[in-house]
């Protein structure tokens, strides 16, 4: 019985991996800070609240950088033998993660604006309001912030479960592509089939 998967070559660019793991830490921290600070009545409420806003701004900026890195260094393809539905789920969940990483900080900023709150990033550094003062708009955005954050948490859970499924069950090289790819995987990018021409390519294919 030969159930070996089709060759899965390539890994994420080192910069993409660095951003992924940095943001994984920041986003998980952020989700726990957020859910904790709205519930607690202890002194933790104050410093969690003070941490939440600059952390959100940092995640937004890092997500923009990461999107640029992703466009510049496209991620390796998924294993060819993955079922289509699984591939769809993988792609959809990744775009959902990007959408949430970018929208949650903006919704938070807009929500504080509509609530008439100062938007402090620490000390006297303040962001200008995105929206005019309006309590009803605040309520909608505040609820959206909560449910989008829950959605982000569940997507992160699914993402983590899927990564472990790739790493422990399928063992198809998807997990190492974001962790510690073997040397072979880094260098053996499937060569693009190039129609032979009279001239050799002027630049490396990578």
């Amino acid at each position, binding site marked *: 019985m030969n*159930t*070996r*998967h*089709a*060759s*899965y070559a390539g890994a994420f660019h080192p910069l993409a991996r660095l951003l992924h793991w940095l943001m994984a830490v920041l986003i*998980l921290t952020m*989700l*726990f800070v957020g*859910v*904790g*600070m*709205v*519930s*607690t*009545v*202890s*002194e*933790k*409420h*104050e410093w969690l*609240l003070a941490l939440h806003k600059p952390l959100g701004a940092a995640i937004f900026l890092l997500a923009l950088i990461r999107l640029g890195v992703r466009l510049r260094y496209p991620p390796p393809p998924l*294993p060819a033998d993955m079922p289509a539905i699984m591939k769809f789920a993988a792609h959809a969940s990744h775009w959902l993660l990007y959408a949430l990483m970018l929208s949650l900080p903006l919704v938070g900023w807009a929500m504080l604006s509509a*609530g*008439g*709150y*100062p*938007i*402090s990033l620490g*000390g*006297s550094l*303040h*962001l*200008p*309001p995105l929206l*005019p*003062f*309006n*309590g*009803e708009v*605040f*309520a*909608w955005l*505040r*609820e959206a912030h909560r449910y989008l954050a829950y959605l982000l*948490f569940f997507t992160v*859970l699914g993402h*983590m*479960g899927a990564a*472990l499924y790739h790493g*422990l*069950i*399928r*063992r*198809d*090289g998807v997990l190492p592509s974001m962790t510690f790819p*073997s040397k*072979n*995987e880094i260098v*053996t990018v499937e060569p693009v089939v190039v129609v032979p021409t009279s001239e050799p390519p002027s630049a490396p294919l990578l």
Partner: protein
Amino acid sequence: MTDPSLQPSRQPWRWAVIALAVGALAAAFAYVGGWLTPQRLSSRQIVNQLQQGGVHPGFRRNHAKGVCVAGYFESSGAASAYSKASVFAPGRTPVIGRFALPGGNPYAPDSSVPIRSFALRFTLPHGEQWRTGMNSMPVFPVATPQAFYDQLVATQPDPATGKPDPKRVGAFFAAHPETGPFLAWVKTAKPSASYVTETYEALNAFYFVDAEGKRHAVRWEVTPEANDDAGTGPQAGDPDYLAKDLQQRLAQGPQRWHLRITLAEPGDPTADATKAWPADRPTIDAGTLVIESEQAQDSGPCRDINYDPTVLPAGIEISDDPLLPARSSAYAVSYLRRTREEAHFPGAPRANPSSEHPQ
């Protein structure tokens, strides 16, 4: 796939590892969010308890009955040696305020409680704000969020009689000797005939931070220039005399208070709002609060302001008073609930935030 030894594997332990990892993260999230620990006091529980007397959609869960006011603070510059906040430099800062009665009933008669409250939002340059909520009493009854919650539970109306059970109330105060100074004061306190003649105290301690970064423990209060309370007196049978009195006085001219900052000495408690500081502590007259106009609270600019006392400019910081973070957390719950009710009752009167948002 470069390692030929790696085959797909469906051993149960591999599935168990995945389930464990995902489950542990979800459980940690639920724990931090308070869903697994209903016995741990949360902001939701405090506000739920405040709502025991009934929900009045769109209204604050506490201090529900009130009126919006607007004016400015004219700083004398005297406090600027202790706080670098720009509000204390000589000059004017616009203010949106709110007078109110404690309690969750927006239709409570003004004479039902001897306490009035005054909340202020100062709008500073560069997006900064200072929000404070003050009460016309010298000390707070309790020192901690848990004691506050326990007091709410002990004093909630008995469904059978519609009144608090005197036994539970008595047991609470007996178990909480820190309520002594408040009880001694409230015994002789009478409902005032006017919002304007009251002194309002920020019962919690804060820190002022000066330009050198040195912290000074402070409490503040606003003391009225008007002191003719005895002359007018509440009219019998009118449950809403405070708003009418305010309207009449403002028709005659702006009303003024002095913002007085009391400086603590080493050893004065900052974490206990039940204890007044000794009367001989130095005070600074930081300037004059001038209230020029009033607006109904269901359409005025104070309606959608959450007077969270931890919204502070650089130069003022919260102290270690445990009531402050609890107020912040619970006010946020109340604010979301009432603005959500506004959003879901689109026929409700809209606030008029004209010229109100800092920009």
